[in-house]
Each structure stands twice: as C-alpha cells, then as structure tokens.
C-alpha cells in the first residue's frame, strides 16, 4: 500500500536535492565537524598544541569556581538584556516614524541602514576616537564633568559599548519592523479609525499585536547576537578597564588563544552554546504562544 501512495506523489525535481546536498556537505565539513571537535576538546587538557589527555568533566567543574568566568557571564547577561530591550524599543519607534507619511522617507531610511553595512569593528574604531577625543572636548566645553573623560576608561565603559551596539543594531531591527508594518492590511487601520482608535491606543491595540512575528524574530536574534558580543568590545576596550567589559566570547578568545587554556575555554564555549540555545528556545516558546493568542 505504502509503495503505491509514494509512487503517486509528483516527482520532486532532482535539482533541489543537489542544492541541498551540496550545502549540507559544506555545512557539515566547515561547521558541524569543527563544532564537534570543539566539544571533544572541551573534555581534554589540550593547550592548543602539543599532547593532550582526556580529563573528563574537569573543565566544566572548574568553570563554576572560576571568578573570571562568572564575571564574564554577569557582564554578558547585563549587556544582552539592556541592549536587547533598548534596541527593540528604539527600532520600533524608528520603524513607526519611518512608516508614517513623511517626506524624504527613503533617504532617511538609507541613513539609518548605513551603520549595518559597516563592519562592527570599523564602527568600534570610529567610536573609539569619538569617545576618546570628541566627547571629552565637548564635555569640557560645556563644563559637564561626567562627559569630560573617556567613558571607555571608567566604570561606565559598558554604556559606551551599549551605545555603539545600539547604533549598529538598530538598522537591522528597524528594517524588520518596517517590513512587518508594511504587511499590515490598511483596512485594519481604517476600521480602527472608524472605531475612534488613534495614537498610542491604535499602536498598543493594533500595530503592536500585528507586529508579533517581527517582534519574535527581533527579540530572538538580538538576544542571541548580544549574548555572543565580541567585535565591538575587541575594537573598543579589549575587555578593560580591568576585566569590567570582558564578555564570554572575549574571555574565550583571550584566555583560550592568548593564555593557553584552549581546552578549558572550549568547555566555556560549549556552555555558552547551551545557554544561548536554551534562552532562544525559551524566547521562541513564550513569544510564539503570544503570537498564537493574538492570531
């Protein structure tokens, strides 16, 4: 019986299998194998070169008593939560503004999208200059003490990095929100108009719920991205002053390659992977439930 039904199914063009096959092979060799190797090394005492032995769970157990790792996780979570929330709030406001019938809309959109096309390293270096030279001069000119020092050399270095991350991140998130806004049927708005819903009420009751799918994507992708933050920090503070802006990814790089702790930091990387997956799955569950309710 089964054979018969499968024969009846229209034949799938082989070209799809070839496409998927090639990509699967490439993905497996360049992504999955290195990943699995990394997982394997996390159970060894490999320093990045030379001989190694399996040491079981030693690396993972050590992680819980290592203050550096703890601090890096604290910093990363703080950074990720603040930045994810801010980037979504700002992008949403921007998208709504850009979706309104204003003049020079496309030009302004282009401006907002520009940061996304620059590499975050380059943006980091540019802001490094701005924070070190321009802002302190401005602060001194205006007599504001808090602004007259390089923020990256103080306790507030995290805010400097957040500001830059927002500047880079808003572009992409805004784009998704604009796409979401454009897919909302104008009939809905007309109906809302007739019912007298305007301004913030219209946003909270109609626009925002209908943006739910875009919101889900943005929340998940930005949370994932900011939990793995690396390039902005390397360009701006290299984890300093002290270790106050050392994110997990920065710690893994610095200690793993520079400090000869390759295996230990592989364990850390595996841990980060698990944490990111758990958080993403959790977010997806919660946000998709919300979508269903609204839908």
């Amino acid at each position: 019986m089964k054979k018969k039904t499968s024969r009846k199914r229209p034949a799938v063009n082989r070209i799809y299998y070839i496409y998927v096959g090639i990509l699967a092979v490439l993905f497996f060799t360049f992504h999955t194998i290195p990943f699995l190797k990394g997982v394997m090394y996390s159970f060894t005492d490999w320093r990045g070169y030379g001989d190694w032995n399996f040491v079981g769970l030693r690396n993972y157990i050590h992680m819980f008593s290592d203050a550096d790792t703890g601090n890096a996780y604290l910093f990363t979570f703080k950074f990720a939560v603040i930045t994810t929330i801010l980037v979504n709030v700002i992008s949403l406001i921007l998208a709504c503004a850009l979706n309104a019938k204003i003049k020079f809309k496309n030009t302004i959109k282009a401006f907002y999208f520009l940061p996304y096309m620059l590499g975050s390293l380059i943006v980091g270096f540019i802001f490094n200059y701005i924070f070190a030279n321009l802002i302190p001069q401005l602060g001194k000119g205006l007599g504001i003490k808090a602004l007259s020092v390089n923020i990256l050399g103080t306790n507030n270095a995290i805010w400097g990095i957040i500001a830059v991350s927002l500047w880079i991140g808003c572009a992409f998130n805004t784009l998704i929100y604009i796409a979401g806004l454009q897919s909302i049927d104008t009939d809905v708005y007309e109906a809302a108009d007739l019912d007298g819903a305007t301004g913030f009420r219209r946003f909270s009751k109609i626009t925002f719920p209908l943006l739910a799918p875009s919101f889900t994507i943005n929340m998940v992708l930005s949370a994932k991205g900011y939990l793995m933050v690396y390039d902005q920090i390397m360009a701006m503070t290299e984890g300093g002053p002290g270790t106050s802006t050392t994110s997990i990814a920065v710690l893994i790089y610095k200690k793993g390659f520079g400090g000869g702790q390759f295996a230990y930091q592989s364990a850390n990387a595996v841990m980060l992977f698990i944490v990111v997956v758990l958080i993403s799955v959790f977010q997806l569950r919660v946000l998709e439930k919300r979508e269903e309710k609204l839908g």
Partner: protein
Amino acid sequence: MNKKIVCTLMVGTLLAGMLTGCGGSSEGGSSAKGSKGTELELFSTKAENKDILQKLVDKFNETHEDVTIKITAPADAGTVLKTRMAKNDMPDIVAMGGDNNYTEVESAGMLVDLSGEDYISTVQESYLQMVYDVNKDKEEKAYGVPYATNASGVIYNVDKFEEYGIEIPKTWDEFIAVIEKLQDAGEQPLLMTYKDAWTSLCPWNSMAPDLAPTTFNDDRKAGKTTFVGTHEEIVEKYLKLLDYAQDDFMGLTYDDGNKAFANGEAAMIVNGNWAINQYLNSNSDLKVNMFAFPASNDEAQNYVTSGVDVLLGVCKDSANEEMAKEFVSFMLEPENAKMYIEDQFAFSAVKGVEQENETVAGVKEDIANGKVANFPDHYYPSGFDLSALISEMCLNYTNGMDNEENMNQFLAQCDEKYDIANVD
C-alpha cells in the same frame, strides 16, 4: 510574507556564519616554494621593526640568489604564532621577545638548539642567561639567540628638565621631589596611557626588580611565597604615582599619549625605548632621554629594566634549516646588528655593538655595566594577565577607593590569579 522574511533571515545568518567561520583559516601554506628557489618564512612578533627587518632581509636576499625570505608580522602576533603552532604550521625562523610566549614555543619543543653555532660566543652572557631563565626547566641551551634588547624606565623631555634646572633623580625621594617641582611649575609631571592596559605594566616592571625579593619569581612559582607580604611597597609607590597622573589617565590611548608627550604636554612618561621612535615621528624636534626608574632609596638597587626584546630562533621541522641558520648568523654580524639597533633605538646583545643615540644615553652606561634586571612579567605564567589586574586597581583608584583596601584586594587577586595560571 512573514515566512519569507524568516527564511531569508535564516539563510542570511547561516551564510554569514559560514563566511566568518572561514575567514580565520584562509592563510596560505607557509612553506610554499616560489619559482625562484626556496622561500623561507620569518615570523616576527613585533610590528615596530618590520621596516628594518625588511631592509636586512633584502640585503640577505641580494647575496643569496636562490633564496627569498618572506616576513610575516601580524597583529597580536603571539596569539597567531600559538594558533599556528596548534596547526603545526610553523614558520622557518622566528623573531620574538624573550617572554612567556617564547617559553610556550620553546617548551613545546618547536625550536632547534643553536648552542653549537659560532656566533653564540659573540653574544653577551647576561642576555643569554635571560634566555636560559625562560627556557623550560631553565635548561642552558640557546634555543633562541638574543638579538636586540630593550630598556624600560622613565623617558623625559630634556628641554623641560633644562628649563627648570632639574637633575636626574637617583632615588625615590629625589624622584618625588622632581615630580612635585614640575607640578608646582604648572607642568604635567607624568603622562599615563592606561586605556591600553599593557602600558600600566611599565611602572610595575621597573619597580618590581628593584623592590621585590631577588628570589621572588622562583619562590612564587614553587609556591613558597606570595605577592601578599612582598609587594606592598611596590603597590604603595605605584598608587603614589597615580596621584601625579593627568586627568582621565584611564581614557588615554598609547598612540594619543605618545603624540601628546611628543608635543610637550608632559615632562615624563614611564615606558620603554620602543616608544621613542613614535615620539620622534610625531615631533622630530623633540629632545628626549631616559633614566632608570629610581624605585628604591638605595641607589645600588635601581636597575635598568632590560630584557631580550628580539631573539632569533630556528624552527624544528623546517625544510630549510641550514639556510635558516645561515640567516641567523647573517643577522648577528656586527654590521647588521648595528643597523638594526640604530633604527630601533634598541640595544644589541652582540658584544661590542653599542647604541650611540642620545635619546637613550641615560641608560647606556648601566646597560654596558650589566646593571640590568629582566622584566619580571617575563617570568610570570602566560595565563596570568597582570595588566588587567593593575588596570582594575587603577580603576578602583579613580573611583576613590581607599588605597589600603585597594592594595590588599589587588595583592590577594594577584596570588589567586597566579595560582590559577600556574599550571603546566
């Protein structure tokens, strides 16, 4: 519509991931043979000496027609070298510092023993000893040949010292007196560039050999002593110096600070001879000189901090070991050694090759007399990131933490982090 966006996104992120994933490993093989005979790779961990190395290499290439030497000097070279060691993709010749990066390469058995070569006898023993000291188990074999050495201390603006009639301080008390005199005259006595955390190590490296117990590094490694109880004076003096730093010293980068110093915005800076080149590049009229950091009130204790800045090593498994050895021998010829140190304001490890430049005249005599101490951080384990700890201490200082509390916290941290890093 939404499905489409999701799909595009997913594909986009996948592709982006693949691209970044591939970026790191796109270096070509090192031992590629050119059409014109053999090609050797010289890996240098020092970005500042690339030009002069190139000149020397060109000179070597002229006389050896069938050989070409290619220089690799990437950013963050120590890390790159270790990564390449992981891939078993070593260059033929390395030119690197006599520091813990060297120890890692040497202890992994990557270098050829050059003790039997003729030129070893032309090298100053004190520097050869420094290389032995950082060999695994202090083995007395020349896996690396000391080539150029550096000096760290106080670099000062000669014009400003003359203007205020200041004598070179020989003791800590005199040093503080000089600083106060400059400050009273409205000058910025000390410039600090702690945005780049490594520069915060310079005063430490200058003070620790003068003030810490002489056997500290060996004892600490064996767990017989601790930073707590031996380094209090150093930290106290370190914090004292911060009182005289400019505003926002945590926010100034090394590059910007060098420009500021070159333009006469400060009288002194604690750094090393490697920075002098940078000052003169921004202001060729600047007159600078150097003196040994007077950390102690006992003049005899105030050493010039001088370490092996560049040593040359030949890698095992190099297909062209003989040619690589010949290149090292070429580099150590007095004429070539001289050429190198003149360009770099450095000192030579080759006997009889002296630095005659005025910009470092103040420490020349001490170096010739062997009144030198190696950089203490060359003996610390490589996972021990002291600069981050010092930078944290300085941050606490700017936040107004009590000095006593700051010191205790810092020293306790030093011991804790040292123990974590001190594993074989």
